[in-house]
């Protein structure tokens, strides 16, 4: 463990890969280290008595994985799923897997550290709570989401 960590940090210090997806026309990014796989929308089994943004559970090769609607999480109205709707399966350090439902997956871009800047502390920005940092790309400014908060905060 001790050996592998510095290596990771070095990697993160220079470049990190970011997966971008869009929700309601806005593009968000998440660090690729959390992403396990991307699958199409599957049959979701409803689990009663849980918060609305958790849509239920899906079966990924025998594993029961909860899925979260990012739209619902951001307070945006949900739209019917189509063939571009995807579930990004995230895996956290403790091994827990959680799927997030996004409108569509865009691309993976290598982002260097210099392109990442911190978020302003303004509380007024919508869903600022889930945003970790801001990425300045040639194609424009993108928001990087904090996976831990996105999934685990109440």
């Amino acid at each position, binding site marked *: 463990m001790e050996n592998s960590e510095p290596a990771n940090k070095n990697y993160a210090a220079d470049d990190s890969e970011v997966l971008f997806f869009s929700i309601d026309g806005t593009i968000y990014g998440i660090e690729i280290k959390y992403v396990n796989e991307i699958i199409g929308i599957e049959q979701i*089994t409803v689990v*009663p008595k*849980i918060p609305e943004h958790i849509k239920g559970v899906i079966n990924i090769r025998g594993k*029961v994985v909860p899925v979260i609607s990012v739209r619902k999480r951001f307070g945006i109205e949900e739209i019917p799923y189509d063939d571009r709707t995807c579930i990004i399966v995230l895996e956290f350090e403790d091994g827990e897997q959680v799927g997030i439902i996004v409108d569509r997956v865009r691309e993976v871009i290598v982002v260097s550290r210099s392109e990442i800047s911190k978020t302003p502390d303004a509380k007024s920005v919508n869903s600022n709570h889930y945003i970790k940092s801001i990425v300045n790309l040639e194609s424009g400014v993108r928001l990087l989401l904090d996976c831990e908060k996105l999934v685990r905060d109440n």
Partner: protein
Amino acid sequence: MAKFEAGMEAMADMYVFETTTLLEQLDQILMKTESDSSFGEEEINEIFRTMHTIKGSSAMMGLDNMSKLAHAVEDMFYIIREDHPVINSMETLYDLVFTASDLMKAEIELLQEDEYAPTDFSDQMAKIEDFAAVLKNGERSAVQQPAAPAPKTSAKPSLSGTAVKVFFEENCKMENLRALLVINRIRDLCSALEYTPSDIEDNSDTADIIIKNGFDIVFAPAQGQTDNSVIDAIKDCPNVKSCELSGNKQAASAADDGDSTAVRIYFEDDCKMENLRALLVVNRVRDVCEVVSYEPADIEDNADTAKYIIENGFILRFRSDKPDMVLRVIEDAPSVKEYEVISAAPDNKNENVPEQDKKTSGTAQTAAPARQAAPAAAAPKKESRPAPAAGKAPSGGAKQSLISVNLNKLDTLLDLVGEIVITEAMVTSNPDLKGLRLDNFQKSARQLRKLNSELQDTVMSIRMVPLSGAFSKMTRIVRDMKVKLGKDVDLVFEGEETEVDKSVIDQLNDPLMHMVRNSMDHGIEENAEDRINAGKPAKGKITLSAYNASGEVIIVVADDGQGIDPEKVLAKAEKNGILTKPASEYSEKEIFNMIMLPGFSTNEQVTEYSGRGVGMDVVRKNIEKIGGTVSVDSKFGKGTSFIIKIPLSLSIVDGMEVSVGGSIFTIPINSIRESFKAKPEQLVKDTDGKEMIMIRGECFPLIRLYDIYDLEPNTDDLYDGIVILAEGDGKCACLFADELIGEQQVVVKPFSPLLNKYNVKQNGMAGCSILGDGSITIILDVNNIISDF
């Protein structure tokens, strides 16, 4: 935070496992000897060995506190073993060892947590050392009696003794006091002892002299000791860097080496840390023989020796009259690839006759006749030595038939079997096969199912552990409480060979402990007279019994004490405001079960063991966590029984699938009483509009699943859907669902932590499972549904 040096983590698991097992064995030995109220030679040796191993492996793991505590206990038993002192206070001895064992167990627990800081055991060590000192003094007065020492002194006139020079580690400071410590340690191993500088106790300047010139000791080993054992004892003292023979006995010591067996050991390639592995071998071998020397000698401190060992092997010289046993120990040690015997003892036998003679006279306690007999007796034994020396053939035959497996691997195996069960259903009931006539396929499918269920049974049986381990831990608790509470109680086991799943047993220890404590504290009468007056034997009795009954294991903790007074319980419940209906309406059974409600305790006084009112509540919670139930039965004046029912296994259940809207729920078969279509005349409504169903004259509340779970049902017409009469927690209710789908074995998968945060369990969902078609079903927990909705 790094608890161990790099690379040691891999051995930490092994260490924890080994030490825990040893400590448990220790407890068992102690318990046995205590009830027999005598120490046999064998038991003392066993305790001594156990402590020695713990000391060695703890030191290897860098756990100084553990190692020192074990050393203190070892020292104490060393005195008991060697000197056979008259022990006046057996109780103190047991208390000391039990406490030490407890401390070590607690330390091992701590070790498994992330943040670990070594506990200071110096208090306990001081107590043990004090007691050891008392033992020694007692022994000395015993020695004053003429018999023992007389032949000894005549047999060994060399009072001039062996001279050694001791050096301490650099910068360890206060060398004079450390020297004093050494002297105190070996004082009792020697019949005569001199040292220079001699005023170490009073003169702190001697520290400098010791640093410069070393600390000289001249000693004559006591009865039953050899020079080497004393030197080993010196080397074992804290901060001793080296201890070298400096005087006349050097030659003799070299000769000592001569009658030993030397073995060259090679370790597996790439096993890493060869020096520490070698140390492990040395520690193990120490238990069965006398280790004379090893090469390289500084394996403990010098990591570079690993390289040397890889290239040249590790040379170990030992002396034993059963060398083949020692060789087997070497072979069984972890990571040992191969070994060769370089020099066996017999070669030196003839040249060393005087040495032989001396050695046997040291160990055999009788004088002349034994001395003559000893070499003769030793000779035939030695003839068997060449066999192992010739090769390792004889030791290769006896392999262990038991292995210890990491529980995680078993969990994975069980998961896999679960997957196979699901996949089998996926294949054999594949929609593509519908309407086809496939005789051969069906035949093969049946065969597959048969094999699968056999596989499932086997895997389950691997995970089964007898309850005896959990039971025997209770002996210890009863013993401690017997002393503290002054009650005389017998603990009786019945059916302790009954097996349950490993994951169940882990959850069972706490509840069992609470219940046994409860029985000891509240159950058994305070005074023996009360018992005699009630026509019961003066000695109380607590019975732990276990048996299998219809897929469940039933464990009963019963005492023959005063029983529970229902009046008292009821009064207390009323006072605490936990009654939900008029007091007169409670049945005796209901009243007894009240003691397991949160915040209930009939004991006026809070004792060390129970009375806080959390105990029985915790018991119930823990048991329910593993899918079991607890109930209480009591006869006032006769005794109380706690009855625990737990499922044999947690992971695969027979379930009935029902659909509600688009969702499929699984209700465990063992909580279903019956299912039926309701008829209009069965429906009863109370004044609040609550629905109830009348079955054979009994009324049960109706719970509509779509209602409690906010689902869109296909039908809300009671007479269209299906009603399931389910039982949980001693109560029954009717569950209403759309449709009955069928019965299937399902593999319970726990909810992910994300969902557990939202109390899914409290809402009546026990877990989920994957059906043959890949869809997910939620397994209902009938107990929670009935009690919460």
